């Protein structure tokens, strides 16, 4: 276990330069743009006085390396900039919106991965059969369909035609619900967006990866050994095969949790869900660069952290890794 600890330390240390690179890329983007960085930071539609103030605040007339240090300083203090559009600090906006986004992404992802993996393992067990073909093709088809379209169709179907779910928002506005009723109301609103996230890519990809992995694992020699030992087929499958087959899924999980941030942009737009995704979209139109850059920074860092965590979990589960 000592080696595992070392691995964790090593992996964490490796992440730091990566985050650093990401921050630098962020920083460069402002300066690569054809327009004046001060205008970008202040927002395109700001008045000249404000732009000048921004220029001084961020020291944009200073040499580049000093600017970088300033930028890093601001970041470390939690200052992500100020949004003209909302007239608030970016950090406070994020603090408000992020939980809502997580509310639909996290359950959607987790359910999608669990269901997808179970179905994928099942399809692998029955590979070559009709049910396998149906599952594979359906997951293919779902993955090829734009998520926002799926969301739209679901709204029309369940929100308008069948009237089971609300058509948007995160709570019923006109009634001031509290306590349990509030929670249930949010859950009711949350269902469709979460479901869309789940079936438009989490479930299909998990299914395909699990299926391929299980099929690959079942061909290994140690499976033959397990059968030769007289173990029941179910034991062979669940104990010996799955333990190995599920490792790739674990690797992917971390990455997707992060990529869902980008997916949430589309889904939240469709459902009018006031989370980070919607914030990003609104900022695109308002050309509110401070928000956009903060989003990029957060998204990248989340990806980096997520992949680090999933690497560590993988190392814990697969004894071969640490001993490289």
């Amino acid at each position, binding site marked *: 276990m000592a080696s595992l600890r070392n691995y964790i330390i090593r992996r964490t240390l490796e992440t730091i330069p*990566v985050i650093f*690179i*990401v921050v630098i*890329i962020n920083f460069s*983007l402002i300066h*690569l*743009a*054809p*327009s004046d960085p001060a205008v*970008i930071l202040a927002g395109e539609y700001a008045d000249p006085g404000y732009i000048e103030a921004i220029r001084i605040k961020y020291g944009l007339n200073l040499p580049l390396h000093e600017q970088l240090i300033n930028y890093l300083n601001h970041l470390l203090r939690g200052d992500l900039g100020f949004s003209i559009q909302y007239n608030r600090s970016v950090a406070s906006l994020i603090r408000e919106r992020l939980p809502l986004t997580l509310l639909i992404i996290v359950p959607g992802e987790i359910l999608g991965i669990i269901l997808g993996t179970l179905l994928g393992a099942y399809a692998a067990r029955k*590979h*070559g059969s009709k049910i396998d073909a149906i599952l594979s*093709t359906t997951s*293919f*088809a779902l*993955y*090829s*369909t*734009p998520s*926002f*379209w*799926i969301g*739209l*169709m679901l*709204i*029309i179907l369940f929100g*308008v035609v069948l009237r089971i779910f609300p058509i948007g928002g995160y709570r019923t506005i006109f009634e001031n619900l509290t306590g349990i009723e509030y929670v249930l109301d949010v859950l009711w609103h949350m269902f469709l967006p979460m479901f869309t996230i789940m079936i438009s890519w989490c479930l299909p990809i998990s299914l395909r990866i699990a299926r391929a992995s299980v*099929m690959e694992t079942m*061909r290994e020699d140690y499976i033959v050994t397990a059968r030769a030992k007289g173990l029941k087929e179910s034991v062979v499958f669940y104990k010996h095969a799955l333990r190995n087959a599920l490792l790739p899924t674990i690797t992917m999980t971390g*990455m997707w949790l*992060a*990529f869902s*941030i*980008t*997916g949430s*942009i*589309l889904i939240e*737009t*469709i459902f009018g869900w006031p989370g980070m995704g919607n914030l*990003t*979209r609104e900022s*695109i*139109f308002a*050309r509110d*660069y401070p928000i*956009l*850059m903060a*989003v*990029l920074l957060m*998204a*990248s860092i989340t*990806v*980096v952290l997520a*992949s680090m965590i999933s690497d560590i979990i993988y190392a814990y589960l697969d004894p071969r890794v640490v001993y490289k």
Partner: protein
Amino acid sequence: MFLMIKTIRWKNIALNLRAFWLQFKKGRMALLGVVIVSSFIIIGVIAPFITQYGPFELTNDIYHPPSRKYFLGTDYFGRDVFSRIVWGTRVSLFFGGCTASLSLIVGIILGAIPGYFGGIIDDLFSRFFEVFLMIPRLVIIILVVAIFGSDIIYSILVVGLTIWPTNARITRAQVISIKNRGYIQSAISSGASHFRVLFYHILPNGLYPVIANSTIEIGRAILIEASLSFLGLGDLNNVSWGQILQRGRSAMFSAPWISFFPGITIFLLVFGFSLIGDGINYALNPRLRER
């Protein structure tokens, strides 16, 4: 000696291609994919001949449901949805093709080099891939497009330059495994330059998995383009499927046909490309062919 290697090389490639095609043909889904994609390509090419209206042509029939006059209905401006979708095919195919090609070229070059030379170069490049893979694509694209403008060229460049790592990884793995084969060793020992060996000998035999991946990538690129247009970041001069969907959203309940059909076409085209790519992989990998 060179001549002999040359003829062996071409024979090798030709034989591989033929064997591959025979195997590919067997996959029904793969052939379906070819049919779908070809149909779209044909539709895109003959667009002017099968549409009655232009993509931005206004008529007086606003929000007209699908009928004989307007095959798939009209939108808020009275534009025929069918015509818009047909013209949009060109944009989708163009975007997908350019992006995937860019990613293919960059990916092959950046994957072949570490694969061939190994050692420190390999380590450096692999690290580089890792970092690149972690960049959340859509956000960067949005940022770039927001800063630089929504001309389609920018989108193609950004997407193409962010999805190449998968191609690079595949190429690298292929180069590593082919590098040690007999005919490569003989080419090297007969004095061929590194460039020659890599591009004339190794790559032609190892390209299939990358091609498979690129085919699938065309589909992914089309989805990205649709997402961009949907968010309003697409090229406004050309009609694209995502754009139609976006406009259709405001009339989601009153005129659902506007949103419905572009989604179907996106799905079909992406599905088609995925089937082809998967079919290529299937044909290449004998183990998947059991039963």
